[in-house]
């Protein structure tokens, strides 16, 4: 149980290949922190530096108060679950889980007690004598978790542990992982490229892109107040609508509509963002826009409209009872509380 600090950490492979740039983030004790970003954004490298599998080019990583830059992986008091599970194929489930404890020269009865209690938590009691190849994907995944749990480490590192599971099992395991986090009361650091996993599991989310940490915040924070265009576009499905606008003081003009902004901004070019659910089927006086609908997707609980507003592509999420057919033109209201404006140059959010 411990906090983790990335103190201006840099990972550079060669002079011009830098995969993690000046990363600063403090992860609190017992927190479930999710590192999320598109593939190649440096999130796995960040995790592997913490695990001790990659060296740190610049900066410090601290676990608790201890700088671990030069501490061997095994002495960092961490456990890691790999995307591929990395189970030892020639060992039984029991031996797989006992292996880290044997390496720590723990006594046999202690090992036995820990392995059995971990396997009980994970529901692996009946599979202890099996080899990994005789297990299903979900069971293997739990063995990998078990191998991490038995050591009762200070920090759990999980590198995309769900990406090899099918959709149904993934949803189930997501819930189990959250339960596990509550039971173990340990710091979890979880890497994923799936923003749904990030949103559902994280106490806080750290969003990375191109080696740069974009924003750190609770799921609600990053969803409602994205710091920049990238975060706004990365979090949420369907993605946020982006419409180029020309701003002057507190109004914004797009190709198909014009509206008053809640705050005044400098005049110039901007990118207006609003989520599909900010559009409603009730046109309002302040901001109404007319949408030419191309595609209608009915999902039962939701209805998505894909179409054009002016010359910009827009997605709307409306009441499933609203009657719309492709080709229709509909008037939609835009909830100004859901508006975001980004600088066209720097891509940073005005609000």
């Amino acid at each position, binding site marked *: 149980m411990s906090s983790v600090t990335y103190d201006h950490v840099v990972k550079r492979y060669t002079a011009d290949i830098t995969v993690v740039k000046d990363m600063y983030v403090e992860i609190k004790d017992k927190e479930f922190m999710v590192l999320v970003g598109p593939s190649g954004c440096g999130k796995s490298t960040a995790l592997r530096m913490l695990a001790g599998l990659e060296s740190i080019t610049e900066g410090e990583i601290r676990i608790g108060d201890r700088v671990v830059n030069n501490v061997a*992986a*095994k002495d960092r008091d961490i456990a*890691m679950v790999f995307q591929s599970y990395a189970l*030892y*194929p020639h060992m039984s489930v029991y031996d797989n889980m006992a292996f*880290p404890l044997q390496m720590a020269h723990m006594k046999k009865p202690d090992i036995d007690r820990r392995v059995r209690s971990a396997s009980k938590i994970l529901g692996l009691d009946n599979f202890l004598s099996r080899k990994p190849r005789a297990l299903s994907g979900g069971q293997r995944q739990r063995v990998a978790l078990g191998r991490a749990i038995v050591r009762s480490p200070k920090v759990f590192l999980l590198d995309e542990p769900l990406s090899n599971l099918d959709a149904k099992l993934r949803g189930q395991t997501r819930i189990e992982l959250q339960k596990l986090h509550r039971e173990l009361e340990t710091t979890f650091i979880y890497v994923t490229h799936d923003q749904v996993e990030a949103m559902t599991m994280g106490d806080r989310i750290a969003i990375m892109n191109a080696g740069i940490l974009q924003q750190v915040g609770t799921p609600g924070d990053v969803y409602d107040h994205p710091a920049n265009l990238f975060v706004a576009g990365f979090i949420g499905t369907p993605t946020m609508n982006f419409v180029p606008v020309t701003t002057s003081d507190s109004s914004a003009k797009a190709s198909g509509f014009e509206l008053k902004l809640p705050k005044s901004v400098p005049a110039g070019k901007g990118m207006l963002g609003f989520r599909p659910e900010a559009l409603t089927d009730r046109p309002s006086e302040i901001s109404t826009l007319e949408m030419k609908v191309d595609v209608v997707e009915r999902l039962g609980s939701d209805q998505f409209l894909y179409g054009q507003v002016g010359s910009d592509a827009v997605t709307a999420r409306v009441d499933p009872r609203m009657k719309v057919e492709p080709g229709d033109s509909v008037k939609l209201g835009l909830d100004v509380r859901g508006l975001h404006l980004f600088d066209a140059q720097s891509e940073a959010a005005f609000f």
Partner: protein
Amino acid sequence: MTVAAAAQPTSSATMFSPKWIAEHLSRWPLHIAVIGLTAAWMVPTIGLLVSSFRPFSGQATSGWWTAFANPTTFTISNYTQVLSAGTTNLGQAFFNSFMIAVPATVLPVTIGAFAAYAFAWMKFPGRNGLFLALVGLLAVPLQLTFIPVLSFYVQHLHWTTNNLEATGIPGLPWVPLWLAHAGYGLPFSIYLLANFFRALPSDLFESAEIDGAGTLTVFFRIVLPLSVPALASLVIFQFLWVWNDLLVALIYVGGTPSVAPLTVNLAGLTTSLGQGSNLLTSAAFFSMIVPLIVFLSLQRYFVRGILAGSVKG
């Protein structure tokens, strides 16, 4: 050698349906090829077996296949002669062969495994260059090394069979041969194992590192158990090569009966005029027994899919 679990072509078609027939017919060329090749490789051995039961006169005058026309001429005298200690000293030669082949197999495989692990998974300066040089050594004909190595043994170390025997230490006369075989076997052994080790998933090594396993522990508890198929094939290969080797043994230990292996002994059975060549057939069969046992006992380690379940589903 494949480690991935090979998919068995299982047929779901009902028997004798057109699909079933098509599936089975399509495999016929394969079956014919396999059976044909097996037969072609078997013929000389069967010929040797038949000949070993024929008298010298028969062997010298007609082909082995003609023997079936006249089964009464079959005899076991070749075997009894070879086995009678007075004529051939087969027991001693057998023992010598063992004493030569076992260390000459264990040494290059063991050292090779350590070296291969370093080449595959440890970073050190000059690794690639060294490995390249090693692969280059595979192409060096070993005959080229006889004179320099032997002169080094004899002139600098004074390792002659006589000198070494004179020390009275059992096994010592074979040391030059063990080292020579280890040297000749190492390049291939390292090359084969390094390639095999390299193919092991890197996640396993990282996981073991985090679990607290040191380099040696990883080697003994993870790499070796997972490499049993490669090790088994290497052991078979090296053992057979040493067991059947005549030239290297002749060079380094010579024909002294107390140390010479079976191959040297067999070669001595026949004179340049062909006398005693009938004994060669039965003696060759004796020498084949051991490789057969080695092969059959290690064969079960060629388990396919040994890595199944390790990474991904």
